[in-house]
């Protein structure tokens, strides 16, 4: 079998031979295995390896991107030839170019600990056992007579990428992931509430005990029984780490070069200004050891660097790729996120709950959307009422609405408990005076 580097080199050679004056070629290969267990029996086993070769083609000042999973050499030649011909009929675009090679400089030789060398030695039987034990643990809890169904899953992946640019960049990245999850359905008077728990890591040995995940999933679900709709009003809202990233993610589109250049961002012209409470500091950190978003170079080959996005509420950087940076006559930063980290506070979720007399704890969002141009947003929520600093009855079928600018100015607390199983490492977030619709 050809090595990733050889495949990418073959691709670049074909692109240049077929008429691309410059090109970036990237070869991706990924294997994903998953084992599903349900109600005491094996449910599904999936195992597949996918590969693709993608080409960013620069032909006579014109630009296109194509990819294919058909890597037979004769197909590739015809495929690229056709793509080059199509590129030639597009409009010229003087802002399209590979990154300036100065952005390839300074690549550090550092092990980010993304690859578990033990992966190949984990037996299919062990994977099945983990899924089975997770499912059994969920059923072992008190009040398990209410449980209707439990599903669990073990999954792991191996991803490899090799990038090669005609103006001198080459880079290889590989990583493994391991996830274990359980989801539980229970019955109550009105329906069949469901909830789940999961954990993941870059190394197999960092996965928590399956019992922890199974029990957490069952307890989370049983706590949802008898949920009702609360009253409409203005609340203090605590959002738990697992879902707090949903709120931060609404800023991601408006921070992008494309939204800004296309006049579709509420953050246009806000550089250096306060866009959130001074408690909010966000950094894009590509070098986090074993992070899900860690990388040495970004998806344009530019050397990855820590990027302050918001410092004490003040907007410091946009996500700018080469193209939109050129269009806006700015320096590129990066067009994609790596690990999004927040400056942490000194209390965890439970300590924050104890500080709130009356409020709402949000444990999941349902649907909703945001308007990146105006900052208006509206999201379904479920969670719990907080009364006298304690978690009270479960609530659901309610909705949070607001505008991102005033909403993030009303951030009054940041937890010390970031959610570790994602590249968006949100801690508990506490907001004052949020508008929630219910009865």
């Amino acid at each position, binding site marked *: 079998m050809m090595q990733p580097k050889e495949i990418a080199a073959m691709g670049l050679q074909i692109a240049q031979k077929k008429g691309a004056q410059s090109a970036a070629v990237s070869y991706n290969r990924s294997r994903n295995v998953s084992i599903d267990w349900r109600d005491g029996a094996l449910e599904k086993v999936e195992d597949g390896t996918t590969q693709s070769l993608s080409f960013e083609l620069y032909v006579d000042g014109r*630009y296109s991107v194509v990819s294919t999973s058909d890597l037979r050499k004769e197909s590739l030649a015809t495929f690229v030839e056709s793509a080059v011909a199509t590129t030639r009929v597009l409009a010229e675009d003087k802002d399209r170019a590979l990154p300036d090679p100065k952005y390839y400089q300074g690549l550090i030789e550092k092990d980010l600990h993304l690859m578990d060398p033990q992966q190949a030695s984990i037996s299919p039987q062990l994977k099945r056992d983990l899924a089975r034990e997770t499912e059994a643990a969920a059923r072992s809890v008190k009040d398990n007579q209410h449980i209707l169904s439990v599903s669990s899953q073990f999954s792991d992946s191996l991803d490899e990428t090799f990038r090669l640019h005609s103006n001198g960049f080459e880079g290889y990245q590989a990583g493994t992931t391991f996830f274990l999850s359980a989801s539980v*359905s229970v019955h109550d008077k009105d329906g069949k*509430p*469901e909830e789940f728990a999961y954990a993941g890591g870059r190394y197999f040995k960092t996965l928590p005990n399956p019992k922890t995940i199974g029990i957490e999933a069952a307890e989370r679900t049983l706590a949802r029984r008898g949920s009702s709709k609360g009253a409409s009003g203005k609340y203090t809202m605590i959002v738990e780490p697992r879902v707090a990233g949903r709120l931060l993610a609404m800023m991601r589109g408006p921070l992008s070069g494309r939204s800004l250049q296309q006049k579709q961002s509420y953050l246009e012209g806000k550089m250096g200004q306060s866009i959130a409470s001074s408690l909010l500091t966000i950094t894009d950190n590509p070098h986090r050891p074993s992070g899900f978003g860690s990388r040495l170079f970004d998806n344009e080959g530019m050397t990855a660097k820590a990027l302050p996005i918001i410092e004490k509420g003040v907007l410091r950087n946009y996500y700018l790729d080469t193209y939109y940076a050129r269009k806006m006559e700015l320096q590129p930063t990066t067009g994609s996120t790596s690990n999004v980290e927040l400056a942490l506070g000194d209390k965890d979720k439970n300590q924050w709950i104890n500080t709130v007399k009356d409020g709402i704890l949000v444990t999941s969002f349902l649907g909703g959307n945001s308007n990146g141009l105006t900052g208006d947003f*509206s999201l379904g929520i479920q969670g719990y009422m907080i009364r006298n600093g304690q978690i009270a009855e479960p609530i659901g079928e309610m909705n949070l609405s607001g505008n991102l600018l005033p909403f993030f100015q009303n951030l009054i607390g940041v937890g010390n408990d970031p959610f570790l199983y994602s590249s968006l490492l949100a801690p508990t977030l506490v907001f004052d005076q949020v508008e929630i619709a219910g009865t």
Partner: protein
Amino acid sequence: MNWSRRSFIKASAAGIAATGLSSPLWAKPTAPGGTDASVGYFERFGVNKDIIRKVMATALETGGDFADLYFQHKVTNYFILRDGAVNQAYGQVGLGVGIRVVKGDQVGFGFSEDLSLSAMQQTARTASVIASGAAGKVPDTFQFSKNLPSRYQTQIPWDQVRAEEKLPLLNGINEKTFKMDKRVVKANITFMDESEAILVATSDGKLLEDIRPMTLLYLTCVAEQDGKRESNTYGVAGREDRSFYSSDRIERIVKSAVDRTTILFDAVPAPAGEMPIVMAAGASGILLHEAIGHGMEADFNRKGVSIYSDKLNKSIAQPFVNIVDEATQNGARGAINFDDEGNPADKTMLVENGILTTYLHDQISAKHYKLKPTGNGRRESYKYAPMPRMRSTYMLPGPHKEAEIVQSVKKGIYCENFTNGQVNIGAGDFTFYVKNGYLIEDGKLTKPIKDINIIGNGPKVLEKIDMVADNLVVDEGGWTCGKNGQSVPVSQGIPTVRVSSITVGGRNA
């Protein structure tokens, strides 16, 4: 990761992950059917009946009850107009085979992008780990299914249309958009065309081929007025060829996108809390998709985890409520000639005269319930195993008139245009996001509203649909349904209906 939630995302320029260019390599797709010895389209990749039989034998050698092979070749092209020029194109070619082995309710699945016999046999072995026992029986021959329906009557396949023939469509729409309203400052157009061939072979001897076209086009505009900006999108999609883009349709795309954007300058915040709502005919079918469609997918019911699991044959709505899921509308985005398991796909009544009549089945759930499959076994691609999915879901016309429905509401909102929705299958809670609508005050549409989420509970909301108009519209938009990480194209529709009470996620609670 997609857990117990089913999300529903409208395709838009912002949602494009990867994309492609037309490839003349596959210039002449064979007509579906092929000759008796042939496997039609996939012969060009070296696939024949003997190879299929050998791979099937490997898949069944550990004792699986059933196995199927799903070959797919898909060429997708996107052209994007931004800042007045079509200056970016994206293309993607996917080629592979998914191999599934079923033992009871259990599934083993693998896929290969290499269609050589040895690579496919290795994948078949991976899928066969689900079973352990004596080898299952392989059919002696595969019978090509003939006389299949033909629901996408495209004259010229997309892979025979050159890029330069597609560009004038985008440039023309751009020009019309700026001409229509001086307040327009940006126009973004995304055009997609797709040529897809599939071949399904099953261990009960079926062999079916289909050539599925698809196209979609989205126009997003940004307008400015008195230092304020607003933006909105209108899109169309179907299993159609170039003739889909008639001058009428182009006019509608431009006018709808511009009108939906500029009306937002006058929008006021929507109220918050429980109130009656009126859902306009067409895209409001999103209500059905979330409130009942997903909950009726038989995999959830087989596992007993859907809120509808114990409601079959019970009255769940007013007697004038009839809801269907079907695959037969010519050229619809949700149309298919047969499903991805090779089963006939026709019309399924979900609710008839207010009574819940049947779930949406794939092969596994149909066997579990001892029923015929309903043709809802669908999959995103060869990389995924099929599961029960919707196709085109809508409500049939009812006894009321739109005017009387609006007049009946003293204080509420009218919902017209949507971006996305989501549902919790078990609890039944669902949402949809309203991009455009109006306040209803004393039976009249008054001020426009925008950007609010509406949240309700499926069975409770169905009971509260108390008026249904006679004006059914199946929406022409490019709806895409997501479930367990797989996306499939769907259609949706509804006549104008009233929901007597639901929670509106507005402001100033």
